[in-house]
Structures are given as structure tokens and as C-alpha cells.
């Protein structure tokens, strides 16, 4: 147990920036480039922490609270999200709702911090962020509903844990639909293609990147790190759902490989797809909701 706890914490705190490196390497491979080093994100973080932060005179304490709340909420959520089939360090009946709402709290403050700058660009990004995330919420909850039904538990550690192999036999078809839906939710929540393009440098078309335009130094480092952790924890759910088997002693290596696989898949999606036009993004998210809803209907059949 303490061994699992240690690995959980180490992975949660140290692995996430590496995953972004994997995504970037994958994209570089597709583009025929060498790409940034695997550990580039760590270097960026180390550089940012040493720098000073510039604060616009328009901003107030809310601007500084944004990154702090974002970091704290995503770490707390990470403590409740299981990795592989292992129990998360913090688990209790009902933690799935707390996780979803903690991410919501982080979003509230990130968006408020963006609005605090008074910039029209950041306002645009905020409006998109809240619109799209409001549409991902039902997809997430419908997907979780399927898992609650098949595991008879309201704890993520049980839903994605040892009861998953059994659920596979009962509601395998539903779980496949939920997997696809959760993957779309993950892409949207982490502002990846086809919802948002993390690479773009045109403020008018960005979502997440434009919201954090005015952050700098350690504050921006915190945002970058929080985004990586969020990518990891949501990716962990997708990875577990993609490999829902009981592999005994191999659980940790299999989980890590699956998580890396998710990162590679995100890189592949970014390489082969273009970002959707902003007006078409809601259709994609509603499609994700409907996929999960079909999953629920399949349960009832």
C-alpha cells in the first residue's frame, strides 16, 4: 500500500511534464522534425520559476489567485484519481463528484484571472473555455453514470479499479462508447486539437493559451505545470479504460505504457487533424454527450 502510494505521488508530481514532451516528440516525428528534447517542459518550468512575474496594473489579487487555485485543485483531484487498477491515496464514496467540481473550481479561477486583465483577447478565450467545458460536463457525468452502474460504486478508485474487469463482461459495449467519449472530453478539457490548438500563436483563435497570455514567470510556470497534471490525470482515466484488465504484478508498468500510449495518441490526433472551426466545436462535444448517452441506453437494453 505504502509502495503504491509512493509511486502514485511520484507519478502524479513528476511524470506529467514528460507526457507533454511525448506529445511534442510524436508531432515532430510526423512532421519529420527532430523536435524539442523529451525533457523540454521541465527545462521550461525550471526557467520560469527563476524569473520574475509581470503584473498588469489592471489586475488585482484574483489574477494571482488564478494559477494558485488551478494548481491546488488539480493536485487534489490527482490524489483521488486512480492510476491503473490501484486505489488512489484518497478515495471514498462520492469522490467522483468532488473531482469534477474541483476541476470546475480551478476553471472558475483561471477564467476569472483572465478576465481580470481587461483584455478583449483573454475575454474571448474565457468565453470559449466556459462554453465548451459546460458542454463536456454532461458527457463526463453520463460516462461516469455507466461506470457507477457497472461497478455499483461512487468512488473513482472502485469504478476504474478492481471492478473494471468484471464490468467489462456485463457492459463492455457501453464501456467502449464511454472510452471514446472520455477521450473527447480529455482533449477538450486539455485544450488539444481538434478543440483548441496549443501551438497556435494567433490570439483570435486560441482558447486556453490566450487566457494565460498575461501570466509570466512562476505564475505562468504554475499554469503550465497544472495543465500538464490535468493532462496526466484525465489521461490516466482514459488509459485505464483502454486497458481494463487485471494484470497482477504488471499493473504499474502496464499503466505507464498505457498512459504514454494516450500521450502518443494525442500527438497522432494533433498531427493528422486540423483544429475544428470554432462554430463546429459544440457539435463535437454534443456528439461526446450522445456517445455516453448511448452507453447508458445500452445498459438498459
Amino acid at each position, binding site marked *: 500500500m505504502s509502495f503504491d502510494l509512493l509511486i502514485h505521488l511520484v507519478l502524479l508530481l513528476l511524470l506529467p511534464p514528460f507526457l507533454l514532451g511525448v506529445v511534442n516528440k510524436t508531432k515532430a516525428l510526423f512532421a519529420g522534425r527532430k523536435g524539442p528534447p523529451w525533457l523540454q517542459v521541465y527545462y521550461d518550468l525550471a526557467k520560469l520559476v527563476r524569473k520574475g512575474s509581470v503584473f*498588469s496594473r489592471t489586475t488585482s489579487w484574483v489574477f494571482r489567485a488564478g494559477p494558485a487555485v488551478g494548481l491546488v485543485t488539480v493536485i*487534489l483531484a490527482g490524489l483521488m484519481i486512480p492510476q491503473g487498477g490501484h486505489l488512489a491515496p*484518497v478515495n471514498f464514496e462520492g469522490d467522483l463528484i468532488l473531482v469534477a*467540481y474541483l476541476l470546475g473550481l480551478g476553471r472558475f479561477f483561471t477564467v476569472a484571472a483572465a478576465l481580470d*486583465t*481587461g483584455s478583449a483577447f483573454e475575454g474571448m478565450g474565457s468565453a470559449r473555455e466556459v462554453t465548451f467545458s459546460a458542454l463536456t460536463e454532461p458527457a463526463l457525468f453520463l460516462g461516469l453514470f455507466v461506470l457507477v452502474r457497472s461497478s455499483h460504486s461512487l468512488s473513482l478508485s472502485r469504478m476504474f479499479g478492481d471492478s473494471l474487469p468484471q464490468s467489462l463482461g456485463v457492459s463492455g459495449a457501453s464501456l467502449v462508447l464511454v472510452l471514446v467519449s472520455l477521450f473527447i472530453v480529455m482533449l477538450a478539457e486539455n485544450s488539444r486539437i481538434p478543440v483548441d490548438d496549443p501551438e497556435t500563436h494567433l490570439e483570435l483563435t486560441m482558447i486556453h493559451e490566450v487566457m494565460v497570455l498575461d501570466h509570466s514567470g512562476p505564475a505562468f510556470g504554475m499554469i503550465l505545470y497544472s495543465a500538464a497534471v490535468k493532462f496526466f490525470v484525465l489521461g490516466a482515466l482514459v488509459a485505464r479504460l483502454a486497458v481494463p484488465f487485471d494484470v497482477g504484478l504488471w499493473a504499474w508498468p502496464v499503466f505507464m505504457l498505457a498512459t504514454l500510449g494516450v500521450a502518443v495518441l494525442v500527438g497522432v490526433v494533433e498531427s493528422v487533424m486540423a483544429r475544428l472551426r470554432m462554430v463546429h466545436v459544440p457539435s463535437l462535444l454534443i456528439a461526446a454527450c450522445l456517445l455516453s448517452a448511448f452507453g447508458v441506453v445500452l445498459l438498459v437494453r
Partner: protein
Amino acid sequence: MGELLLVAVVAAALSGVPGLWLRRDGCAGEKSAVALVALAFVCGVIPALWVLLSGTTLTLHAPWQIPYGSLSIRLDAISAVFVLQILIVALAGSIYGLGYWSQREHPENGTRLRLFYGMTAAGMLLLVSAHNTVLFLAGWEIMALSALMALTAEDTHAEVRLAGYVYMVATRAGTLALFATFATMFLATGNFDFSLATAAVSPGAATAIFVLALLGFGLKAGLMPLHLWLPGAHANAPTHVSALMSGVLIKMGIYGLVRVSAMLPNPTVAQGAWLLILGVISGVLGVVFAIGQHDIKRLLAYHSVENIGIICLGLGVAHLGRALGEPGLVALGIAGAVLHTFNHGMFKALLFLAAGVVAHTTHTRSLDRLGGLLKPLPLTGALFLVGAIAICGLPPLNGFVSELLVYLGLFGVVDVDRKLLWLLGAFGAAGLALIGGLALACFVKVFGAVFLGEPRSEGCAKAHEPSVWMRLPMVVLAAICFGIGLGSPLLVPVLDHVVQAYAPIAAPSLVVRVPFTSFALLGVVLLGMFAAVFAWMNRNARSTQAPTGVGTWACGYARPTARMQYSASSFGEMLVGLGRWALRLEESPTVVRGTFARPVAFHSHVPEVVLDLVVVPFAERLVRLFRLANRLQGGDLNAYLFYVFATLVVVFLWVS
């Protein structure tokens, strides 16, 4: 104890009376009114807390001379929760009124406002403790009519009179439905007490009672699509009256629905399903309409519709649980619904009071003319933020605790044998998730538009914090939001008593089903971690050499102005577009032509769809129909004489 409650009712009812004889321009009237409301608070809180903590039921019965009625008081845990929130919000609003609507600034209507404010509170206290339908209706009418007089305090303004008129029509219609409800209950039970539970009721009569109650109480609660009176009334009333109305008055409808749901002898699955579906409709559409608003108080009013929806979802789960004989669903559903009722009373009153400060100091309620107020109003801004986080149901505040209970109830449906009900549970959970996401969008928009960025108008630059009388009630309400959010384990016995009052079933205590302790602990951890990280950031920010006093990055543009900020309307534009099928957005077409375009104006407006596009056209048609009767009754004496003559002739012919 029961007598103490009656003292509270009388003290609240008479709170404005001394002011009638006191000097118009003096402050003795307002001081005595607050003192009497405070007395009512003390007298009412003691029995309410006693009932909540001990789980006993207070009864008081006195024979009464009025036909059909009896002075029959019964205070159980459900009533006590409502009594408690009425008293808290009434006292908070009353103190706030000292600064907001002082007698010196409003000599013409201050006395009237305080008189009816107190009577509204008294009417509510009476109705939630009544055990007799006639007494209930008496309290209901005192509340409804006093609220009308309080909300039209500024009746020199045309829009206030209009809002009051719409409110009056709606409340009359609701009372009519309640008369029918109670008459049907009388036919079933043979007496005017709330004793339906023990009577033999035919399915037809039960359905009639359910539908009529839904209509009558739904109108008061503002359940979509019966919410038509609510936005106008809340926006145009003085702010502390809005807080009282939105915080507790509309909850009287919820109280009625809870009572009827608890009393119906043979609850059916269909009834529970209807409550649940209406809850989702009300919740989603309420928040979608809210996003389209430009007026901060109107926006808050639509959020009441949303929260009534969430409460109704919880009540639907409880009713479903009773129909299926599932104690778990009953416990989670009713505890969630009642706790959310209380919580909404607290954070909505807080939000209204903070919005009142904004309107008071900047003289505008339009979101697109506000901005940057966090600097001149640091305390009000922070308190508004607390209310906004609470109403979005985000941890670690009180809104999260009650929404969590409703979620757990909805997810609990999967353990029921009837598979089709799973769809209902999934629908409810997805609906609540969507409501949560949209509410977040809306409140981040409001907080951003009002308190963040640069001031968009002159008024904002001159804003200043209000007097201590207006700040104190907001601080207390915010403290309650924190207290319930972090101290939720302490609520367990109280909520268990509420569950027992709703349905005396052998449900295990909520503490078994809900990990309150984990949530409270994690809430504290969250605050602690945030404080540590935030402190580190602030220290770090001070110690570095980074340039200070620079402007926001505007892509190289050197002279950004406050008007270039993203406005609240632009912020909501995408979501309003997604909800276009319900919103019927009215926009003026804007075409920019030519190289040197002339100035163009743009205007958009979200009408109150049910009122403006359904009820008013229908009423106009009705008026046109009755205009035909005008031809017969034109005021011409000769014509009337002719009618008399013709009638006589016809009668004679008929008789002979």
C-alpha cells in the same frame, strides 16, 4: 416553545408599526423596526433550533373563532429549516435596509416599505408553521400581498408598477390553484388539517391534488414555465426585498411542494419523474436565460429559477424513493432538496445584497456599464465572489454540499430494479452537470464584468464601500456559506431529522451514505494549500525585479481603452447562440458598409419568453374578445333603457 414562535410572528408583523407614528424624517422608526425584527429572530430561532437539534415536533393548538380555521401550529424539522432561513434573511435584509433604504433618503416610502417587509416575513413564518390549511392560506395571503406592497415601494416608476402588476396576477392565479388544492384535500380527508397522509385517497383525487399543488406552489416558486413574474419583480424591488423574495419567499412554494409530496398517501413513480423532469427543465432554461441578461438583478432572478430546478430535482428523487420504497433515495433526495433550499437562501441573499451595493454606489444595474469594482469595493467584491462560488456548487462552500446530496440521490437510482428509471437518473445527473457548467459560465461572467478589468463608466470610478450596516449582513451570510461547506459533518443529525419529518422510514443515517467528513477535511486542505501557494506567490512577486506598473498586453496596440474589454454580452454570446431555440433573442441588424463606414448602433435583448411571447399575446387576444362586449355597453343611457325594454318584452312573451 410554541408560544415563543407566535411571539416571533407578532413581533415581525408589527415591526413597521411604531414607525407609522414616529417622525417621518427621524431614524427612530427604522431603529425600532430592526429591533423588533431582531426580537422576532431571537424568539423564532430558539424553537427552530430546538426542533432541529432534538428532532421533536412542537405543536400548539388553540380553538379559533373563524369558520373552518383553527390556530393549529406544528413545527417539525422541515418547518424549522424554513423558519430558520426566513429569520436569518429577514434580519440580514432589515439591517442592510438601515444603510440601503434609510428613512432620511426615502422619507416618502421608507415607512411603508418597513411595514410590509415585516409583514411579509411574519406571513411566511405563519405559513410554514401552520398545521391547518386555512391558517396556511391566511399566512400565504399576508405574505403575498405584503410582498406586493414592499416590492412596489418605488411605485412612481412605470416599470415597478408593471412588475408589481404581473406579480399580483401571478400570485392571484397561484392562490386560486391553492384554494382548489385544499378543497380537493378537504373532500378526501373531511377536515382542514394537513392530515392527508392518513386518509384514503382515490388515485384520481391524488393526481388532482398533485397537479393543482404543482400549479399553485410552482407559480410561487418560479418553476419554469411558471416563472413569468419572477425576473421583473426581483429586478425592480428594493434590493433587500429582492433578497427576501429570492432568498426565502419563493421557497414557500417549495415548502408547499415538500409538504404535499410528503402527504400524498400513494406516491407514484410518474409523479416523481415529473418533478425530476421539471427540475431539469427549470434548471437548464433558468441558467440559459440568466446568461442572456444585461441587468445584474434580473440575472440573479433567473438564477433563482435555476436553483428552484435543482431543489425540484432533489424532491423528485425523494418522491421517487417513496414511490419505490427505497429509503436511500428518500433520504438523499429530501436532505439535498431541503439543504439546497436553505443554502440558496443564504448565498442568493448574499449575492443580491452585494449587487445592491454595486447598484447603490454606481447607480446602474447594467453589466455592460460596470467593471473594475474590486479595487474600490474590495470587501463587497470578495463577498460576491464567495456567493458566486457557492451558487455554482463549487467546493468547499455550502452549495457543493447540497448539490452533492442530489447527485448521490440521482446516481443511487442505478441500484433500483426498474431499468428504465436508470435513464431518468442519468438524465437528472447529466442535467445537473450541465446546469453546473452553465452556472459557472454565468457567474464568472458576472464577477468578471462587474468586479474585474477596467471600469466601463464614470460611476464605477467613484464607487466606494457602503456603511457598516450594509457590510455586516453580507459578512454574516458569507460566513454561513463557509460554515455549512466546511462543517457539513455537524449537519448530519439535523438532516436525519429532516428526513424523518418527510417520511418516517427506517432509513440509515445519512452519515453512512455521505462521506461528509472527507469532504470537510478536503475542504480545509484545499483552503490551506491555496493559502500556502498564494502566500508563496505573493512573496515571490514582491521579491523579483520584474517591471511594475505596466499595462495589459494588447498585441502591441498602444492605447487600449476600457471599452475594448470583452463585455458581458460578448462573453455570453456563444452560449446565448446555443440556447437560441429557447431564448428568442431580439437583435437589431448591424451592417457596416463602405470604406468610411458611418457609426452603427447595435442592440440585443433577451425577452422573457413565456411572459412576452405567450402570456401577453394570449391576454391581449382575450381583451380583444371582451371588447366585443363594449358595443353592448357603450355608456349610452338610451341604449340601456332599450335593453330593459327589450328584456321586459322578451320575458312577457316567454311567460305568456
